């Protein structure tokens, strides 16, 4: 907690934006360890993968587009400080009424929470409680989250590819040598690591039933392997492997898988995302449904992150050509 506060303070003080990004990454990592201490391993996993890795990468690629240093600010933002202080004081005042930290008698643990804890394994047969809640009980919410991610990807694409210089057309390889060509160690090590990272992503994807993991984390890890490949071997090499058109298709395909599972049950006369139509035995049906839904999540998350990163680095390339 103390470290969290210190890092947050350092973030506001730093003027070097690169340092700010690094501090943000440290902040996410601290958050993740904080979640581990609170036994929320799934959340910690997601925080480490998304907060510490992917958002840092995206912020760094934004920085390479915009520039490293903050503009000097002359006026003191006193008004903002007053607003922040008041809001903070109100929030702290609100926490005074809350039940003590970790108390089992808190209202949040009284209603559906205890039902999930007691009934989840019997009803879904999924060992990991978080996965069963995420994909089965609260499948509708998760569907919303997936659509949000998809929409974010579409938004970034719409913003960044509006200029005509976006290099979907193949770039002349003689002009743009692959970056890091002289770094043999980096190339060899990343060649060794990328298959392992991809394998680990698949493990996380399919291990979500029994341990911490699932579609969101697996998608992020998968995408980060491809991002590593792009950074070492160049955008063109990565685009040769997975083209932007395929990524667009895949990011929509994941949402399609999720929603078609829902529609399938709707057409069979059950509720939306009721998995019981997928198989005879209810537990088997839950397994199938969760698996399909997690696949959809993984595919969409991975391809959306790759799309965003590709469009950023495409911008970088076009700027480099212009200079």
């Amino acid at each position, binding site marked *: 907690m103390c470290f969290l506060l210190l890092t947050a303070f350092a973030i506001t003080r730093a003027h070097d934006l690169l340092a700010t990004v690094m501090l943000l990454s440290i902040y996410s990592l601290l958050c993740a360890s904080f979640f581990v201490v609170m036994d929320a391993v799934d959340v910690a996993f997601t925080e480490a993968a998304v907060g510490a890795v992917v958002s840092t990468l995206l912020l760094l690629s934004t920085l390479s587009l915009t520039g490293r240093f903050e503009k000097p600010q002359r006026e003191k933002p006193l008004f903002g400080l007053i607003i922040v202080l008041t809001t903070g004081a109100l929030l702290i005042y609100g926490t005074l009424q809350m039940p003590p930290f970790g108390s089992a008698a808190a209202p949040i643990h009284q209603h559906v929470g205890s039902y999930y804890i007691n009934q989840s394994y019997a009803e879904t047969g999924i060992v990991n409680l978080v996965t069963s809640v995420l994909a089965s009980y609260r499948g509708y919410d998760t569907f919303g989250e997936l659509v949000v991610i998809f929409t974010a990807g579409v938004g970034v694409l719409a913003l960044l590819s509006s200029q005509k210089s976006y290099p979907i057309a193949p770039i002349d390889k003689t002009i743009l040598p692959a970056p890091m060509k002289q770094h043999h160690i980096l190339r060899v*090590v990343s060649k*060794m690591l990328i298959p392992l990272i991809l394998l680990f992503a698949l493990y996380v994807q399919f291990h979500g039933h029994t341990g911490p993991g699932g579609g969101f984390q697996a998608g992020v890890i998968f995408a980060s392997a491809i991002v590593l490949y792009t950074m070492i071997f160049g955008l063109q090499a990565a685009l040769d492997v997975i083209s932007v058109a395929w990524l667009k298709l895949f990011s929509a395909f994941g949402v399609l898988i999720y929603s078609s599972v829902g529609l399938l049950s709707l057409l069979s006369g059950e509720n939306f995302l009721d998995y019981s139509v997928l198989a005879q035995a209810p537990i088997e049906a839950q397994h199938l449904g969760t698996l399909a839904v997690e696949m959809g999540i993984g595919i969409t998350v991975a391809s959306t992150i790759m799309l965003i990163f590709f469009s950023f680095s495409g911008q970088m390339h076009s700027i480099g050509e212009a200079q």
Partner: protein
Amino acid sequence: MSEVINGLSVICLLLGGLASIIAAIGIFRFPSFYTRMHAAGITDTLGSGLILIGLMLQSGWDTTLAKLVLILLFTLITSPTISYTLANAATTNKDAAK
């Protein structure tokens, strides 16, 4: 037998913690970028490696052991690479190293 393994594991954990602390001190106290990186790189690999070995001795024959071995391999590959990348970046643009 179990006491021997336990003692070894405690020694490994303590040494690993010591190495990490030495690395932290070195990062703050050494004069130039390269010496700092030396402190961070070498003692960090040693520290995390020793801590992982100590944890492996604690875990017994289990899937946890396999995971710890994988983590150890991963750190053994990545952290020298990170040191190399840092040193390389420092030599290519010398202003940033100061």
